[in-house]
């Protein structure tokens, strides 16, 4: 709302170094989708190696450098690099920036009736730290020795010894700073920029989910930043924070390090971030689902307050469950028991959230729009992801399942068929708001059914492979006789992964085609109640021509006294039919 004498903004000001939350949101959207695609491509290379170990990659095998893939066959070091970068990119450069940076940035100010974020320039800086951080992370592939290859968890002492890790750490510092600025911005905006009448208990669930997420980012990331600084010191200045005494590397004593440090310390610090991070991955998508489900069942969301309280409880508890990732690390069994109990406790609000969303369907006249299909798929898929996590949270079963493909299956059900599916739902849902046009429904449905089937084809076999006992870190599963039985399932998984890639073509085409040629819509095509749909599509700079006033809660659908089946938050009173 800079109405001071301001010349027409230049192209750079408007689209590159923009301070408008909507442009920044779309920048995040496009960038994070590109990173998701890159991370997905990397895993396709890995999947090929897992299903057909030792066979040259078709088509692109020859294009890879001889050191990474001699004769077109992915080498073990390159495989490890792909694994580490796949995890890092998907989590820190894909899903989180998409859920928070893109959807949060674009939708949150609209939903609370704000003209922009509280600190627009800081918002721009968040994006311009995120992008260089991501590019730096990617560029590490070009380094001598290649990218980081110690997994996205970067456990020392391996990570301190392996090449590529320094750039990983520097990129992470950029990304952490970016998300720190973003989280401060989100919290202040939510607290201080709500339109008149938008009390906390009238905020849509999506806003609550972003609000809780911002606190997790604010408080969980700094410990990783500190831990990353210590690891950087270990690598660059040869301190021994994580390096134990008398470490033997390649048959020789690692004498550059004086020793005396604790490798386990990193694991604790890392998971202190990375468990809250799981809720950063899942809470915004849950918020998106709540919006879409309420809108498409044409009834208020079931248990609005329960959902909000469950989110707050989840957020708080997520800080005291981290060591359930470390049951087999050799830490004290008393500690294991503590974390087992907290883990069982944290599953209660997760189930409560999901139950509220499922019960919201009851008695609704459901509209099976494309976004609704994705949101509906989220419910059972995230359910599978959550329930398969229980055996991992119990120490006894975890000892067997730890570090097997079962774990991979579990968290991909949460993050891919859960978060990513919901983020697709959000993309189809808010697309008309971004561009004033609708995405094509037929292509959307092709994308939906193909994606859902392929995703299950990839991850369902992993449970079986894992239960059969196969380690998740193997470069060549067929090297061990006892793994051969699971090999056909690896092939199923790999073929499904390539099918999934094919089924992303409709959505990419649909996105760009609909941006320019899609069916034009009015400002509220879904007949929604929240404020984001009460302003023009796309909203002008400053969003609302007139400051909206809010009179009621966010989900007044099928209001008995109102002539239409939706009553916007800013409508002064119901109009009798």
């Amino acid at each position, binding site marked *: *709302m*800079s109405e001071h004498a301001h010349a027409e903004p230049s192209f750079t000001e408007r689209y590159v170094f923009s301070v408008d939350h909507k442009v920044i949101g779309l920048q995040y959207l496009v960038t994070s989708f590109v990173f998701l695609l890159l991370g997905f491509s990397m895993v396709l290379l890995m999947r090929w190696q897992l299903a057909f170990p030792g066979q040259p990659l078709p088509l692109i095998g020859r294009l890879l450098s001889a050191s990474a893939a001699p004769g077109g066959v992915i080498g073990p070091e390159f495989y490890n690099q792909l694994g580490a970068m796949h995890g890092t990119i998907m989590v820190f450069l894909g899903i989180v920036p998409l859920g928070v940076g893109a959807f949060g940035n674009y939708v949150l100010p609209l939903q609370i009736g*704000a*003209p*922009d974020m*509280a*600190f*627009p*320039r*800081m918002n721009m800086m968040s994006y311009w730290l995120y992008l260089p951080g991501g590019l730096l992370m990617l560029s590490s592939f070009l380094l001598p020795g290649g990218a980081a290859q110690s997994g996205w968890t970067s456990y020392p002492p391996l990570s301190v010894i392996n090449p590529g890790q320094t750039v990983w750490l520097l990129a992470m510092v950029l990304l952490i700073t970016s998300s*720190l600025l973003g*989280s*401060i*911005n989100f*919290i*202040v905006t939510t*607290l*201080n*920029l*709500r*339109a*008149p*009448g*938008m*009390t906390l208990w009238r905020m849509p669930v999506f806003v609550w989910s972003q609000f809780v997420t911002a606190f997790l980012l*604010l*408080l*969980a*990331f*700094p*410990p990783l*930043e*500190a*831990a990353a*600084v*210590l690891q950087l*010191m270990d690598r660059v*200045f*040869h*301190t*021994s*924070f994580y390096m134990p*005494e008398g470490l033997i590397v390649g048959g020789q004593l690692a004498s*550059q*390090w*004086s020793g*005396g*440090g*604790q490798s386990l*310390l990193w694991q604790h*610090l890392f998971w*202190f971030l990375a468990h809250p991070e799981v809720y950063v991955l899942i809470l915004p998508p849950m918020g998106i689902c709540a919006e879409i489900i309420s809108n498409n069942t044409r009834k208020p969301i079931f248990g609005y307050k329960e959902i909000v309280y469950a989110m707050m409880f989840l957020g708080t508890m997520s800080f005291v469950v981290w060591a359930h990732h470390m049951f087999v690390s050799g830490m004290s069994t008393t500690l294991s028991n503590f974390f087992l109990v907290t883990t069982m406790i944290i599953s209660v609000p997760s189930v409560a959230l999901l139950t509220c969303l499922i019960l919201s369907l009851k008695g609704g006249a459901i509209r099976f729009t494309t976004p609704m299909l994705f949101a509906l798929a989220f419910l059972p898929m995230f359910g599978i992801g959550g329930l398969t996590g229980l055996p991992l949270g119990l120490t006894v079963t975890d000892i067997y399942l730890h570090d097997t493909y079962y774990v991979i299956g579990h968290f991909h059900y949460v993050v891919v068929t859960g978060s990513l599916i919901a983020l697709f739902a959000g993309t189809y849902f808010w697309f008309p708001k971004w561009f004033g046009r609708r995405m094509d429904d037929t292509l959307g449905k092709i994308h939906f059914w193909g994606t859902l089937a392929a995703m299950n084809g990839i991850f369902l076999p992993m449970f079986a492979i894992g239960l059969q006992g196969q380690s998740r870190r193997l470069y060549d599963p067929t090297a061990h006789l006892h793994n051969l039985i699971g090999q056909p399932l690896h092939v199923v998984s790999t073929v499904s992964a390539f099918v999934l890639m094919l089924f992303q073509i409709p959505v990419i085409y649909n996105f760009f085609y609909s941006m320019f040629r899609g069916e034009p819509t009015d400002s509220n095509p879904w007949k929604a109640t929240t404020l984001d749909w009460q302003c023009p599509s796309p909203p002008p700079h400053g969003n609302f021509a007139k*400051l909206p006033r809010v009179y009621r809660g966010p989900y007044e659908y099928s209001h008995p006294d109102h002539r239409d089946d939706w009553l916007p938050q800013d409508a002064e009173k119901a109009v009798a039919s």
Partner: protein
Amino acid sequence: MSAHAAVAAPYENTGVPDGKLAIWLFLASEVMLFGTLFTSYIVLRTAAASWPVGWEVLNVPLATLNTFFLIASSVTIVMAHAKASARDKAGFYRFMGLTVLLSLAFLVVKGFEYGHKFHEGHFPSTSIFYAVYFTTTGLHGLHIIGGVAWNLGLMWWAGRDGWDDRLFLGRVEYAGLYWHFVDIVWIFLFPALYLL
């Protein structure tokens, strides 16, 4: 940042200025950052086979002098804020200048300490104790440098028009909050490294 300042009044809000909320949130994240470092210190020290006695290997008189510098600078920055609130520009310059000088004095003394340690052949890689010492005091030193830059920026800004408006006073206050935090970190670091 001042974009919506003119229309801030009608919004539902906490009554706390945006900037103040932001600086407190930032400090909360900083508490987590240094909290992690202190936790690591405790974990590493309790597990270490041997740990030197701080006052036998580090220079306690110099650190005490530095503690004095920092505490004094916390007082002067409060005075600078008081002078700015009273529209006393010369007084603001005097006390903010003093704050910057005291911070620089801290850095110079710290530099001497570092130089002396390097001269004696003690580097971060020497032992886990020196690793902790150099990393924590180094990060703290970076925070001091950041604070000096911010305070110098405020002095530059005071020379411009509108130096006595609400926004400027707010920034002086936030600089003070940040500075007190950096001070408190040192109050913890000093005994943890030098005295225990």
